[in-house]
Each structure stands twice: as C-alpha cells, then as structure tokens.
C-alpha cells in the first residue's frame, strides 16, 4: 500500500504562536503543541524503524524529504508562476475561473498520477488498478475545463439580465 496523502499542504497561515501575547510571546499552548507534535514524530519514527520490513525506512525518508523538496522547488514555483501569468495576462472576469481550473487540474494530475502511470499494477491480480485511468483522467480534465469555459462565458455576459 502506498501512502497518497496530499503533500501539498495549504499555504501556511503564518506563524501561529498560540499565544495571545503577540508574535514574540510563546504561551503554554505553544509548548504543549510542540511537545505533542514531537511526541507524535518520535512515536512514528520508532514505529517505522521497528516495522522496517514493511515500512522500508530509507524509502520512507526519501518520500518524506522528497515531497518537501518537490513542494518547495517545483510546486510552489509553479503556483507563483501561474499566479503571476494569470494576473498579468487575463482580465478579471477570466482570471478567477482559470485559476480555479488550473488549481483543480494540478491537484487532480498530482493525485491521479500513480494510477495513470500504473504504479501498483500486478499482473497476477486483475483487481489491482482495474480501470482505464488515463481515459478517466482525460474525462475529468474535460469536465473541469468545460466548467471553466461556462463560468467565463457567464461572467462575460453583459449584466442586467
């Protein structure tokens, strides 16, 4: 089984110190959160090492660190670039639907990539990845961009209906 958690965490909401005293004050909540967070991390690492036959720690480490690198180097850069281009090139009526379409398509591409590529296919097990995921992904992208087109058309319609 492969973990497919969304590595694209929503952009952080800044530093939440959990303290009402302002950004520099670190209240009890901060330290409780820190202790709880580290406890979970240590517990996970100990568990992963203890179950190393199933968890394969080097692969796990590559996955955890790799997603960080890919997120910062590729994903975040792409998002900034897409935002910049859509802000400069598109009128406001078009911009929002196109941005929603881009974001949805990007997430869909990321999350369906393993199925489309057939990661986890096993010749002896016909019920593993039994569908035509490339075709289904194409249909889903079609639906997204038809919705974007409809939305753009509606927003461009002269008001006063």
């Amino acid at each position, binding site marked *: *089984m492969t973990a497919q958690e969304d590595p694209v965490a929503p952009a952080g909401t800044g530093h939440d110190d959990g303290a009402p005293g302002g950004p520099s004050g670190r209240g009890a909540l901060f330290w409780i959160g820190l202790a709880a967070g580290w406890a979970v991390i240590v517990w996970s690492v100990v568990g992963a090492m203890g179950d190393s036959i199933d968890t394969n720690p080097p692969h796990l480490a590559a996955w955890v660190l790799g997603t960080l690198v890919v997120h910062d180097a590729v994903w975040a850069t792409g998002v900034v670039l897409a935002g910049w281009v859509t802000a400069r090139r598109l009128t406001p009526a078009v911009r929002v639907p196109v941005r929603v379409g881009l974001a949805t398509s990007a*997430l869909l591409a990321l*999350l369906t990539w393993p199925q489309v590529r057939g990661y986890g296919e096993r010749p*002896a097990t016909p019920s*593993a990845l*039994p*569908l035509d995921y490339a075709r*289904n992904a194409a249909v*889903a992208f079609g639906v997204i961009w038809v919705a974007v087109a409809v939305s753009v058309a509606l927003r461009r319609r002269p008001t006063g209906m």
Partner: protein
Amino acid sequence: VAGAAAALTLTTVGQTVGPLRHLAFFAPRRPDRGPQGVPVNRAAIEAGVVDRATASSYRLDVEGAVTRPLSLTLSDLQGLAQREATLPISCVEGWSATARWRGVGVGDLLALAGVGERRDVEVEVHSLEEGGAYNRSVLNHWHARDRDTLLALELGGEPLHLDHGFPLRLIGPNRPGVHQTKWVTRLVVR
C-alpha cells in the same frame, strides 16, 4: 482545493460505497472487479500457495487445546453441516465488497474437536502462505463463537476462486480484510 478534494472524494468513494462505483473514476480498486466479482488484495501466485492449495494432500488440521484433533480433507469439509453468511471483505487498502459466503462454522468445528464452552478460547488460523505478516490471524472468543464466522468453501454459490483462498478461507463479521485469512490449513486452539 475544496473543489478538487470534493471531486476526488466523489471519484474514489465508490470503491466502498457500492451505488457510487460507476463514479469511481480514480479508485485503485472497484468493489465489483475481481475473480467472482470481488477484488483481491493478494493473489495465490503472489502468496506462493498454488501447488499446495490445489494438491490432493490438502488437509485442515484442528489441533492444540482440543480433545479430538481433526485432520479433514476437502470432501470431509464439504460433508459437514454448512452455514451461510453475507459479509464484507473490508480491506485496509480502502475498499470493501460484500458477498454471500458458505462453509463450515468455526464454532461447529470447535464442537467437533471437543472444545467445550469455555470463555477464554482463542483460535489461531494458519494459512498455507509461508511468509508475510498476515499468514495467520487470531479469533478471540467472540469471533470464534459467532455463528457467522465461517471457514468458507463457497463464494456466491461457487467454489472459492484460488485467489479468494481456495480451498478454505476465514470470513467473519467485524474483521479487517487482512485478518480474513485465506488458504486456511490449520486451526490451533488455545
């Protein structure tokens, strides 16, 4: 993000919610795709049990804390009283599929082996599969005595497919799929 999450949920939830299965565009399993219409997590070839599961020397042994150890052939098992149960395979992979199973009640086998009504009975269920973390499972008292806990010989009115655990698999209520041991060859009563 919310829209994409909703779309992905809608297109994968069908792997366990039957009526939505045709929307399960991206589900890695479909509850109706597989031998006998039920998905398989681990095929017989992958488990390396094909030869022993189909050999005429196959036996189910019931041993351990029993007064009458049993060693039953496939036809012995078919000759015992059969029970039926409609139960799901709920796999930790995220899919579930419900089917009609028929076979020998584990409780009936325990009675046959002379295991009394003691409350602390536990039954280890061993597979023909030699390696792997899930080549055996344990039935506690409640699971072992439940009238729906079967060693199934049939799925949907047909003999079990080899990939579903032919000749004999465990199926019981409220157990994760990985503990519905397949290719069962030995019960050890404790």
